[in-house]
């Protein structure tokens, strides 16, 4: 029951934000996201004390087709729900210094987005999952379309069609699997897991699912919508897309693909691993060349999620644990980075790194917080990024040592583009323009300090996260080993 509350409360809050006076939309949405955070904390304690069952719920929806409102949270999904509900208040707070036109629509859409995301992470019915998956696309599309940059119409159209095309393939695959479930057919997760699929079928369905997820994540070569969209979206849009939404794809692989299509994965896993390795190196190398700070973050994100996907497909417990930890870490770090880009852009009216520089002199606090976020992103030990990256690379290493060496290039290249960017933006001689860089406002301080604290706390004490995810991931790995 509580899970349903977690899903539908943001929907109610979103409707409320749309109805209530627009001047206070910021505050309403912020408060409701805090309430949602409180609910999540409550769900978390229930989960820790009473286990998985207490958060499960199952209601009939379309009984004729075997579709039900089946939701629940296990060790993997509860962490992603927590990530969503921690990031949404931070994302809303991060917009306090921006003045968006039509705020009630803007904040309403963010909350609508939260509704869909929680739905995706907690749905245990294939059809329900698909509905939420598609639903999540709509608010973010509007956010990018209405508050984006100059080329938003062209870019958002591409983004929309590209991801929609992937999703339709997934629907096709889902229906096919549904038809192979034991009679009477059902979309419930247990039924889908039992679908009798030959190796050949799995090989085809694999690509139906994988394309949908790979576009969302994105994995090379299905990534070309991403840099434009991330760069052109308003800061909060980029944060939603990269911080939370792309995790839908990785989560989808773990929740739906690994258990349903073990033979398909055995057949094509190799191929995905190679695509991921290409993603990492290719995106890192391109990131070095970028002049727009936001675009650099976009490419760095491709490299990072490429490694997360590789860890998942290593099918080892370390790789999967790493992917869960890194999903959280990447979410936090990338929101931090996009916020930093926004802070700079708002003050300096540009994101072109060549025309920045010398900002460190004016705001020591900002430069320290920037460094911490950057260290998380380059995976320095004792930051959250290290735990994830270490486990991921170890997972890939157990799959193939040479592949791990190639994926490991992110260790070097990540340092190259990140430190280069930091130097160009923050260091160097103070010039006339950098004097305009004023210190952080209160809301900015709060957001960045929370993010920096999360980076270090999760890096020093990642154990609770690992223990929560462990049982669910072990089950998946065991299941895979049983099949192969």
């Amino acid at each position, binding site marked *: 029951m509580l899970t349903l509350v977690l899903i539908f409360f943001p929907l109610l809050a979103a409707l409320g934000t749309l109805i209530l006076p627009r001047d206070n939309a910021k505050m309403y949405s912020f408060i409701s996201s805090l309430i949602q955070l409180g609910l999540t904390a409550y769900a978390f304690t229930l989960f820790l004390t009473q286990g998985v069952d207490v958060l499960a719920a199952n209601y009939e929806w379309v009984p004729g087709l075997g579709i039900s409102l089946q939701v629940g949270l296990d060790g993997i999904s509860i962490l992603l729900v927590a990530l969503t509900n921690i990031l949404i208040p931070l994302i809303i707070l991060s917009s306090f210094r921006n003045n968006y036109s039509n705020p009630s629509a803007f904040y309403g859409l963010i909350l609508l987005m939260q509704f869909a995301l929680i739905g995706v992470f907690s749905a245990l019915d294939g059809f329900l999952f698909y509905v939420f998956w598609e639903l999540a696309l709509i608010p973010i599309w509007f956010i990018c379309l209405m508050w984006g940059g100059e080329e938003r119409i062209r870019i958002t159209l591409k983004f929309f069609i590209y991801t929609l095309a992937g999703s339709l393939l997934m629907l096709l695959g889902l229906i096919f699997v549904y038809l192979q479930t034991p009679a009477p057919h059902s979309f419930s997760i247990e039924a889908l897991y039992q679908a009798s699929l030959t190796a050949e079928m799995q090989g085809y369905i694999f690509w139906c699912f994988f394309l949908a997820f790979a576009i969302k994540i994105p994995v090379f070569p299905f990534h070309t919508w991403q840099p434009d969209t991330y760069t052109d979206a308003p800061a909060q849009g980029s944060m939603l897309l990269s911080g939370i939404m792309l995790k839908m794809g990785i989560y989808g692989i773990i929740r739906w693909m690994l258990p349903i299509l073990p033979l398909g994965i055995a057949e094509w896993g190799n191929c995905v691993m190679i695509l991921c390795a290409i993603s990492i190196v290719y995106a890192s*190398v391109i990131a070095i060349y970028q002049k727009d700070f936001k675009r650099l973050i976009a490419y760095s994100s491709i490299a990072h999620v490429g490694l997360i996907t590789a860890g998942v497909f290593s099918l080892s*417990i370390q790789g999967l644990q790493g992917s869960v930890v890194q999903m959280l870490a990447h979410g936090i770090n990338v929101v931090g980075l996009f916020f930093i880009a926004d802070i700079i852009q708002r003050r300096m009216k540009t994101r072109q790194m060549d025309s920045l520089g010398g900002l460190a002199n004016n705001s020591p606090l900002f430069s320290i917080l920037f460094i911490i976020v950057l260290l998380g992103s380059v995976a*320095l030990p004792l930051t959250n990024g290290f*735990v994830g990256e270490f486990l991921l690379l170890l997972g890939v290493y157990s799959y193939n040592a040479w592949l791990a060496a190639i994926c490991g290039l992110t260790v070097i290249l990540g340092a190259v583009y990140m430190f280069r960017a930091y130097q160009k933006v*923050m260091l160097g001689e103070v010039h006339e323009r950098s004097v305009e860089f004023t210190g952080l406002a209160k809301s900015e301080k709060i957001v960045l300090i929370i993010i920096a604290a999360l980076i270090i706390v999760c890096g020093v004490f990642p154990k609770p996260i690992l223990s929560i995810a462990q049982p669910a991931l072990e089950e998946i790995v065991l299941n895979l080993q049983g099949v192969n």
Partner: protein
Amino acid sequence: MHQFIWLIPILPLVGFILIGILNKRLPIQWSGGIASAAVFLSFLISLGVFKEVQMDNFVPERIVLFNWISAGNLTIDFAFLIDQLSAIMLLVVTGVGFLIHIYSIGYMHHETDHPRFFSYLNLFIFFMLLLVMGSNYIVMFAGWEGVGLCSYLLIGFWFKNTEYNNAAKKAFIMNRIGDLGFLLGVFLIFMTFGSVSFKEVFEGAKQFSSNDPTITAICILLFIGAIGKSAQLPLYTWLPDAMAGPTPVSALIHAATMVTAGIYMVVRSNVLFALSPYASEIIAIVGLATAFFAATIGLKQNDIKKVLAYSTVSQLGYMFVALGVGAYDTALFHVITHAFFKALLFLGAGSVIHAMSGEQDIRRMGALKGKLPITHLTFLIGTLAIAGIPPLAGFFSKDEILAVTHGYSLPMFALLSITSVLTAVYMFRLYWLVFYGNFRGTEHQKTHLHESPYSMTIPLMVLAVLSTIGGFIGMPEIFHAPHLLKEFLQPIIWKSIAHHPSHTFEYTMIAVSIVLLIIIIYATYHTYVKRGQLPEEDKDLPAGIPMLLTNKYYVDEIYNTLITRPLDYMSGFFSTYIEKGFIDKIVNGTGPALQGLSGVLRFAQTGNIGGYVFSMVVGIIAILLLTLIVY
């Protein structure tokens, strides 16, 4: 002592946080005081630990703070290991670290940003202590990367200078190249032994036979990490550039402690390396090549700190030679004595630079002996120690390295001996040019010449004493004194595969080296003081070898052409041609392609009944024909 051990790294961390948070709210000199006090307290506890370790009934202790990471069968505790090796490294790090903190109070006197400097220094000590105290490869790696970060922050301390920032970035990236090797080595360790904890790994390794390919692979990967951190060929180029940082930083990080982390790591893993003579040989060769190569560059450098930097690279090479021939205790011996005399030389150089109002070019110095008596005397002791005059510290440790190399391979011994001659030459060249001859600076500099304050000279004096007597912890057999260090380190060294030389050889070597040194000292004195010859100005350099040496064999330029620029080019190529020109063209092409297809379909839907009937008839005929063919 047991219950205080965790405080050793935590105290500097607390210092870092305290100074970092209070920052400018602290009275101006306090940050230096807090930072020094934190390190001093750690030093006191380390002394206690050291005493405990020396007891007869001591067994290595593992102190688990908490379980850090665990996934599947991988468990990593945040744990410290106290044994002979870590105990002695603790003393070096906190002891030398404390002296350099005190020195910095004087040296950074004119700086406005005290809190930032001292908080970074304390953070560095914290990470360095993690590195030497960690009881598994991951905690060690945390320290390993952490010291790299602090090195980055401190090299780029004066962040308005782009050149300094470039040096800082280069150091971090070069280190990261090594770190990837280290990480892969750790993965292979985990795959092989099912653990990353020193105890389990070494127990497991003892079951392997010599030159097992897995062990060799592990050793080579770990050594790649050491190459980065300890500035060996081919990743050494960051260290000379790192001299951009304030001089106390060069002394602490880039001479005494951080750069010796690679040697510490190999000594710690001596069980693995002893099992791989093949990897060991590689180490010896790389070390020897680096020692010689860097020493030749040192001959022609004119920046006082650059000479010392190349000297450090060269001395680190010595230590790797010792490791390669299997004399792990000897390598550590040189780590300790080098920490003393190189810290002394750097701090002395700092004192000179301080007196010369920031001048670093030795062609603009000279005759500083009278004005800087304490600096001069202590610098002389450092120079004699590194050159290897008995009975100073450097003599014993370097002599021991030469001796064990002699037992390993004669050609290597010969080249290493030539290197030690070169060492004496560039060091005395530096010494005479700085302290003797005529003063060649500006009038302004001349009027400002002054001896440094006590906060700077006292650390110099302490280090001078240590550089003088430090060698007595490892006397060769012929002096009939016990080799204290060797005995102390006995329990942590599994198999020393080094050969020890005969007494006659020892006597001959001492005699020859003394004679040679006297000749070198006289010859350099003759050249630089009596004849007053000065190094050429850069524009007057004769072509050929001097040009090559002054330009450091153009290695930076080569790397720039072979790696940096191709990477930039590749980045642009991917971005323009593959990304926008190829992949995106295909993606965007699907739109028009679909439109084209729909155009074709639209053409079919004419609304003309006749047309539909016609195509229906054609269709039926086609189906009939098909069934005829199939059946």
